[in-house]
């Protein structure tokens, strides 16, 4: 499916001209766990197609998570109807709920807390209504565990493999994450997350192509694109991929909901903004080898830098 990238809705992630791993979370001004963008319908259809064709890849849950899944469903429905009242409506009669998705012309009647009245598990159901990937991190014994998730657009990781892992186990493959003490700092930050005070951070990578579904399970297909990048095709072919990650404490279960909204923007469009072009060029030029390697840029970073340099020298920006 050819995606339409949209510069107006693109969450450009950089503030400085150097990039390092950090806890770059910011307290959210508007406590909304989801965002509906102009690509809503096409992304929801893609999510549902992936969930149908690859259910084990895209949804996993441990048996003890049902109550927390309902809590997530309630939170997200609340955000949908509050922040997008024209597209989403909820009618309640006690525990009999009727959720209307006008954007997709769908209606779901169910009994709150009774899983058999939903077509899927609560987290899987509500994930099919929003563009975000949804991860449930269970908090117990002073640690966080990946207890459930609906993940259709992962940045090269596997939900099926990471299920049940602790926070540090999940991040074990990131070079320097432990050595620089980031694992403890971020874990402590997350453990102290308060209900009603959600946080947001942005993460980025470069994608050779415009797939949202960059799962580890399909890396042998889309990873080959990294070998095809040249300074000539980089503008159209390579995309800056940004994840807007939001963190919500779930007050009933004391777990954490982690929502991930993935955005793509072609380098050609990015380079149309002179300040973005200059900044991103400097970031890539300066990026340390261990980050280049972990972000999977080794094969095409030089071609991208050549492309950005060419755009800088040509002065063809707005």
């Amino acid at each position, binding site marked *: 499916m050819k995606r339409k990238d949209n510069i107006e809705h693109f969450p450009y992630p950089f503030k400085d001209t150097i990039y390092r791993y950090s806890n770059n979370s910011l307290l959210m001004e508007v406590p909304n766990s989801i965002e509906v963008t102009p690509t809503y319908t096409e992304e929801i259809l893609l999510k549902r197609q992936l969930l149908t064709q690859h259910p*084990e*890849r895209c949804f996993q849950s441990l048996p003890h998570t049902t109550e927390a899944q309902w809590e997530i469903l309630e939170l997200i429905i609340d955000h949908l109807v509050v922040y997008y009242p024209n597209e989403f409506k909820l009618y309640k009669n006690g525990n009999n709920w009727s959720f209307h998705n006008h954007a997709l012309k769908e209606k779901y009647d169910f009994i709150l807390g009774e899983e058999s009245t939903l077509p899927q598990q609560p987290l899987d159901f509500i994930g099919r209504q929003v563009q975000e990937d949804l991860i449930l991190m269970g908090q117990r014994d002073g640690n966080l565990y990946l207890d459930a998730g609906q993940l259709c657009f992962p940045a090269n990781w*596997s939900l*099926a*493999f*990471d*299920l*049940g*892992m602790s926070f540090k*186990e999940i991040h*074990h*493959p990131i070079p320097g994450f432990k050595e620089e003490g980031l694992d403890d700092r971020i874990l402590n930050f997350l453990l102290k997350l308060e209900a009603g005070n959600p946080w947001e951070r942005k993460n980025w990578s470069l994608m050779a192509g415009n797939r949202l579904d960059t799962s*580890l*399970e*399909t*890396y*042998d297909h889309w*990873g*080959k694109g*990294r*070998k095809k990048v040249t300074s000539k095709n980089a503008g159209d072919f390579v995309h800056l991929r940004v994840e807007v990650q939001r963190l919500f404490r779930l007050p009933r279960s004391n777990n954490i909901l982690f929502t991930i909204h993935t955005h793509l923007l072609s380098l050609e469009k990015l380079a149309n903004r002179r300040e973005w072009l200059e900044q991103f060029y400097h970031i890539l030029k300066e990026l340390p080898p261990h980050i280049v390697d972990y972000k999977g840029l080794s094969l095409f970073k030089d071609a991208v830098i050549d492309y950005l340099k060419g755009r800088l020298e040509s002065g063809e920006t707005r």
Partner: protein
Amino acid sequence: MRVHFERGKRKYIFITAKDGIPILKPIIDQVKEEKVPFEMFFVDKRTEQEIIATGIELCLHQQKMGTYLYVALPWAELRAMNALIEKIGYSSEEAQYIGFGPRKINVFCCRCHGITETNEDDAEIECKQCRLGLSISDHYSSLRDAYLGYVASL
């Protein structure tokens, strides 16, 4: 694998096989020196029924709090014994597990989620389910009891 003496316990139980004795000997000597009660079980190449017949399961059930276990077995047998001990109710703080001999590990295929058993020292294998070449990482899942295998070459 290093084994260390956990001092101050009420009683020690050693579960081992013939080749595990040299590993546990320094600890056994220390326990004898400190005159703390201990018991020893040999489970050399036994079937599950034979292991039960040694009385080990019953013995472990009957211990009081403060009993500490040392388990030194070939890797292949260590996993089953670990599962039995946890099932009885011992925590990881109440036992040390020492594996020896050739070790097999499981590799989780990043593409098809198939599990392939291989030697610990292998760096690359072929997934037995989808035939993808896998590079074995050190990323381990205790839920899957497997290491993650990445695409070996694009």
